[in-house]
């Protein structure tokens, strides 16, 4: 006997109507916030340009992964967080956010150049760096894995009675949203109602894979509703928009509004890493709205609103270039790890344990 097919409408996926909270109408983008975020963007860009040159000159072992085009998103998040209070687990394209959250230039250059004085001591490199005890976990490569870890830090703070006023944040790309880890963790933070802000930078590509081979939902923001998170969508090329949305999302999380998800739309303006020329990114993507360079977008906005002057920007450029130069030069002079002196132990316990 053949089974009668059920009417097609029962199979049709229901399109969720999203009544997600909109970004606060009231302008929360005060001058100091924007200036500070922009400085982090600029410093990150100058630093990353230098890292790219070093890579191309063969001075960096391993990969170099840049956040060019994503500085507005990352810096807006980092600026909205409070170092010493909050937890921020940056990912591959978060130099601007790291800078905004107070990472020193030396932590970056030492890690890229393998100095033993850096936080990773040559044991891990490039973007895989952090200071976990200062609220900055060191990412592992496995995409999606940091979300649950940040959730655990917040969970522990809650148990210790120290969660009041604290926010945790981490970032992923569009590709990472397909991992099981991402879905497990989003569900968990929803269940636990943790004050965690997850930022999805949808830069249209995961390495070379475009969005249409990555997910089938209309917009990744639909994930927020599915897991019971607040959801925000933002133009990631627009610093003012990013600042407004990040501040609001972080504020809500901080004030007990539960987990928040921000999806930023933009384009990765570099290869996946500096080894990749991104030949697969069509010109149409580069030329459309989201192909804009967020720094080029931010400058006239900031100037027109009287937040910065072009003279100031020039002065910052000079100062940051000199700072970066110094941080690179210092890290280059420092010792690299010595395999004969390396403590080749992966655990802190020293066996045998005496009775």
């Amino acid at each position: 006997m053949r089974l009668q097919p059920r009417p097609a409408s029962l199979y049709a996926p229901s399109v969720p109507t999203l009544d997600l909270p909109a970004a606060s109408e009231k302008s929360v983008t005060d001058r100091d916030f924007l200036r500070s975020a922009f400085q982090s963007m600029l410093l990150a860009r100058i630093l990353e340009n230098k890292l790219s040159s070093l890579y191309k000159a063969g001075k960096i072992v391993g990969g170099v992964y840049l956040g060019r085009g994503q500085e507005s998103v990352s810096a807006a998040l980092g600026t909205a967080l409070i170092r010493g209070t909050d937890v921020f687990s940056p990912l591959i394209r978060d130099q601007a956010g790291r800078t905004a959250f107070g990472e020193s230039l030396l932590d970056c250059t030492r890690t890229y150049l393998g100095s033993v004085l850096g936080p990773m001591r040559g044991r891990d490199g490039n973007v895989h760096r952090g200071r976990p005890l200062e609220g900055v976990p060191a990412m592992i490569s496995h995409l999606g894995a940091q979300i649950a870890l940040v959730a655990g830090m917040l969970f522990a703070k809650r148990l210790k009675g120290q969660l009041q006023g604290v926010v945790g944040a981490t970032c992923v790309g569009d590709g990472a949203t397909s991992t099981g880890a991402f879905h497990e963790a989003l569900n968990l933070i929803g269940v636990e109602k943790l004050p965690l802000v997850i930022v999805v930078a949808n830069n249209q590509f995961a390495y070379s894979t475009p969005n249409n081979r990555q997910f089938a939902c209309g917009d990744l923001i639909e994930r927020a509703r599915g897991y019971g998170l607040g959801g925000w969508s933002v133009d990631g090329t627009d610093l003012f928009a990013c600042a407004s949305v990040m501040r609001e999302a972080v504020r809500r999380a901080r004030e007990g509004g539960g987990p928040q998800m921000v999806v930023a739309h933009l384009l990765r303006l570099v290869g996946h890493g500096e080894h990749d020329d991104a030949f697969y990114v069509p010109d149409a993507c580069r030329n459309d709205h989201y192909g804009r360079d967020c720094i080029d977008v931010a400058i006239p906005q900031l100037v027109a609103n009287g937040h910065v002057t072009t003279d100031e920007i020039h002065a910052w450029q000079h100062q940051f270039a000199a700072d970066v130069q110094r941080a690179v030069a210092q890290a280059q002079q420092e010792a690299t790890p010595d395999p004969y002196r390396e403590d080749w132990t992966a655990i802190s316990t020293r066996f045998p344990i005496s009775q």
Partner: protein
Amino acid sequence: MSVTYIDAILAAQEKLLREDDRVFLYGQDIGVFGGAFKATKGLAAAFPNRVFDSPISEDAMIGLAVGAAIEGLRPIVEMQFADFSSIAFNQIVNQAATHYYRTGVPIPITVRMPSGGTPGSGPFHSQNMEGIYAQYPGLIVLTPATVADAFHMLIDGVALDDPVIYCEHKFLYRWLKAKSINNDHLPIGQARIARPGKHATVVAYSAMVHEAVRAADRLQPDGWEIEVVDLRSVKPLDLDTILASVARTGRLLAVGESFPWGGVTAEVISLVSEHGFHLLDAPPQRLNSRDTPIPYHPKLWASHRPTPESICDALRHLLRF
């Protein structure tokens, strides 16, 4: 009055929760329900806000535990079955295990893994994962075989600053009983002579210690005195105790319940061959489960894993040299 192996695990967790504010329990159905095996029975009520039901998200469960450990807490995560830790594999071996080496910040989490076969459990509720986790640097892997060890090694494991994979054998849960929990015990990292002997050494761990002792008892009437070494922890592995035993007996059989390719028994044979070749009077032997998934039917299951009979056979073969 007697104490079972699972009573010991429950008692250890009760003591840990009572004495150490940093400890909390996280796992599926461990709250009101008390856990699939009742290893946390009553703890949620006794310790409000310290015992949490988790969603069925093994990856996120361990991720959460690692984050909590960074914050100074000592989570104990219950995997409902060791088999499901495959979903948490990434967070265990890449996040937790690498953390101390990468950052200098140790991760004191304990992952309880209900391990090993029981009749009728089948391919996905019977696995032994110790060899897989022991392969990764940065983890401590414990395999208690006695009621006292189930208690003390859980307490001592939680006290360690490093991630601990605590493999508790489901077959021993209710079957293994002791009169009481003895207070003196060996430190983690030290093996134990479970049964002294002089003609051959059987190195075993977890439930296989009991099968090995049974096999040794059966060979006794023929005049064979078999020594059984209980590893207790497979990582670190107490090579000194193993070598000392092999020095006495000249013969080695390593027995494990896990799959035969690689793993703990292979490591034992390889280390003894490397460091104690001159002590051996016969080629070292190893006995593991068969190289198939773990079968469901009790008849198949019983001859999938090493048994006293198959251990006796292996020993007779070893003693013929």
